C-alpha cells in the first residue's frame, strides 16, 4: 500500500507544471555558469589565485577543466537549491489543503503517518531527480565542454589539489551528501507545510530559515559559532564540500582517496539525518492530531 501511495505522490509531483520550474532553472543556471567560465574562466580563477601569481606559475588552462567547473557550479547553486526543493516539499500538504484535495485524501483509508511518509519519500525522490539532473548538466555537461583533469578546490586559506583519477568518486559522494542535505530541507518544508493551509507560507518560511542560518554562519560571531553553527542545518549542508578536502602527509603530499577529517563529514551526515527524523516526527505528531478544516 505504501509503495502504491508513494507512486501516486510521485505521479502527482511530476504531473504538476511547477515541478519543472526547478529543472528548467537548474538547466539555465548551469548553462550560464558554464558559458561564463568558458568565456572568462581564467579571470575567474585569477580572482582566487591573485595573491600567488608572483610566486607560482598558475596553470589556468589546466585548472579550468570539467571537474573544476562542476565544483564551481555546485558551490554557486547548491546554496540556492533549497528554494527549489521548498517549492515542491512546502506545497506537499499545504498545497493540497489550499486546493481542497487534502480533505479528500485524508478521508481515504490511509493512515496519516503513511501519508506524511509517502509525501516525504516522494519529495526525497524529487530531490534525487533534481540532483541527477544537475549531475547530468553540471558534471557530464562540464566534462563534455571543458574535459577532465586534476581538480583544484579553493578554501579560504588553502588550496586542495586532487588527481584526476581521484575525483569521480568524490562527485558521487558529494551528490549523495547533497541529496541528504536537501532531503533535510524537504523534511523541514513538509513540517512547515503541515501547519499551513497555503503553499506560500511554508515555502517562504523554509527559504527564510535557510537564509537566516546562512547569514549567521557567515557573520562568524563567536556566540553563533559556539552555540548555533555546530547545530546549524545550513552549516552541515555544506558537508558535500568535505569530499573535496584532502588529507596530506608530513611531506605535504596529498593521499589519494583521502578525505580531510572524514568524521566531520560523517557527523554532519548524522546531524542532517537527525534533523530529518526530528522534522518527520514532529510532522507526523501534529498531522495525526490535526483537524483538517481546509
Amino acid at each position, binding site marked *: 500500500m505504501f509503495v502504491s501511495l508513494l507512486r501516486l505522490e510521485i505521479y502527482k509531483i511530476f504531473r504538476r507544471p511547477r515541478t519543472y520550474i526547478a529543472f528548467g532553472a537548474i538547466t539555465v543556471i548551469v548553462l550560464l555558469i558554464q558559458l561564463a567560465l568558458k568565456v572568462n574562466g581564467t579571470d575567474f580563477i585569477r*580572482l*582566487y589565485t591573485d*595573491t*600567488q601569481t*608572483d*610566486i*607560482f*606559475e*598558475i*596553470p589556468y588552462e*589546466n*585548472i579550468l577543466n570539467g571537474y573544476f567547473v562542476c565544483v564551481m557550479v555546485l*558551490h554557486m547553486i547548491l*546554496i540556492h537549491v533549497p528554494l527549489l526543493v521548498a517549492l515542491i516539499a512546502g506545497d506537499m500538504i499545504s498545497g493540497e489543503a489550499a486546493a481542497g484535495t487534502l480533505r479528500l485524501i485524508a478521508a481515504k483509508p490511509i493512515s496519516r503517518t503513511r501519508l506524511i511518509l509517502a509525501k516525504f519519500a516522494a519529495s526525497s525522490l524529487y530531490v534525487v531527480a533534481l540532483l541527477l539532473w544537475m549531475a547530468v548538466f553540471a558534471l557530464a555537461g562540464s566534462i563534455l565542454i571543458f574535459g577532465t*583533469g*586534476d*581538480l*583544484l578546490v*579553493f*578554501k*579560504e*586559506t*588553502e*588550496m*586542495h*589539489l*586532487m*588527481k*584526476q583519477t*581521484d575525483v569521480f568518486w568524490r562527485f558521487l559522494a558529494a551528490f549523495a551528501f547533497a541529496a541528504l542535505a536537501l532531503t533535510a530541507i524537504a523534511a523541514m518544508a513538509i513540517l512547515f507545510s503541515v501547519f499551513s493551509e497555503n503553499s506560500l507560507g511554508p515555502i517562504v518560511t523554509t527559504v527564510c530559515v535557510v537564509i537566516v542560518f546562512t547569514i549567521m554562519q*557567515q557573520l*562568524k560571531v563567536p556566540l553563533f559559532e559556539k552555540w548555533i*553553527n555546530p547545530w546549524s542545518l545550513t*552549516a552541515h549542508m*555544506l*558537508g*558535500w*564540500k*568535505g569530499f573535496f*578536502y*584532502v*588529507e*596530506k602527509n608530513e*611531506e*605535504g*603530499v*596529498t593521499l*589519494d582517496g583521502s578525505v*580531510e*577529517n572524514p568524521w*566531520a*563529514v560523517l557527523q*554532519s551526515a548524522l546531524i542532517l539525518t537527525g534533523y530529518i527524523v526530528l522534522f518527520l516526527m514532529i510532522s507526523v505528531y501534529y498531522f495525526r492530531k490535526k483537524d483538517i478544516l481546509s
Partner: protein
Amino acid sequence: MHKLLFMSFLLFEAAFIKLYAQDEKLLLQKVKEKYDKVNDYVAEGKLKTNVIFIKAPVSNVKVYYKKPDKMKIKNEKGVSFIPKGVVNININEVLSLQHYEAISSGTSRIGNTECRVIKIFPLRDEENITRATLYVDENRHVILKSVISTREEGTYELLMSYNRYVTYGLPDKVQLSFNTREYKLPKGITMDYDNGAKTPDPKNMQNRKGKVEITYSGYVINQGVSDNVFQ
C-alpha cells in the same frame, strides 16, 4: 718600519684574496664548463609540493631547457604549482654572470659531501640577481646547494643531488625552498565547510618557507628542443 710592515701585509692580503678569488672563479669556471656540455634537455620527473596552504599530490612534470637561459616546467594534463623561481632562477644565470665578485666563505657539508662555499656579488646594478651563495662539490664540479637572492622573486634556496647525470652537471633531484606569501580569500566567495580541520593562519604564511622537489627519472640531452615549448 711598522708602517712598512703593515703596508706589506695589506699588499700580501690583497694579493692573497685576489689569488683566492681567482681560485673560486676557476672552480666556478670548471662547473660552468660542465654545464656548458648541455645545450638542451628534456627531463621527466615527479614534482612534490610542500607549501603550508597547498595540498597537492605528486605530479608528473616535464622539464625543458635550452641554452642559455630558457627553461620550462610543464604538467601537460594535470595541475601543478611550480614556483616561478625554479624556472627563472637557474644556476646557469649565476654562472653566466660576466661581471661579478666571488668570495670564498670556507667549507660546509651538504649531506656527506664537503663543499666549498662561494659567495657571488654581481657588479652591475641591472642584474636581477643581487647575491648568490653556491656550495660547490670540488671533486665532481657540481653545485649541491645555492641560495640566490633576486630583485623580483625574493630568495630561493636550491638543493641538488647528483648521480646518473653528474657528468653533465644535471641533478637527479632538486629541492627548491622559497618564501611564501599570504593566501586568504574573501569569506564571501568561499563559504567553506567547517570540518574542524586546522587551517593555516594567514599570518603564518608570510615569509614562511615553501618547498618543491623534483625527482628526475631521466634526461634526454642535446637532442634539440623547439623554441615553441618555452612560449
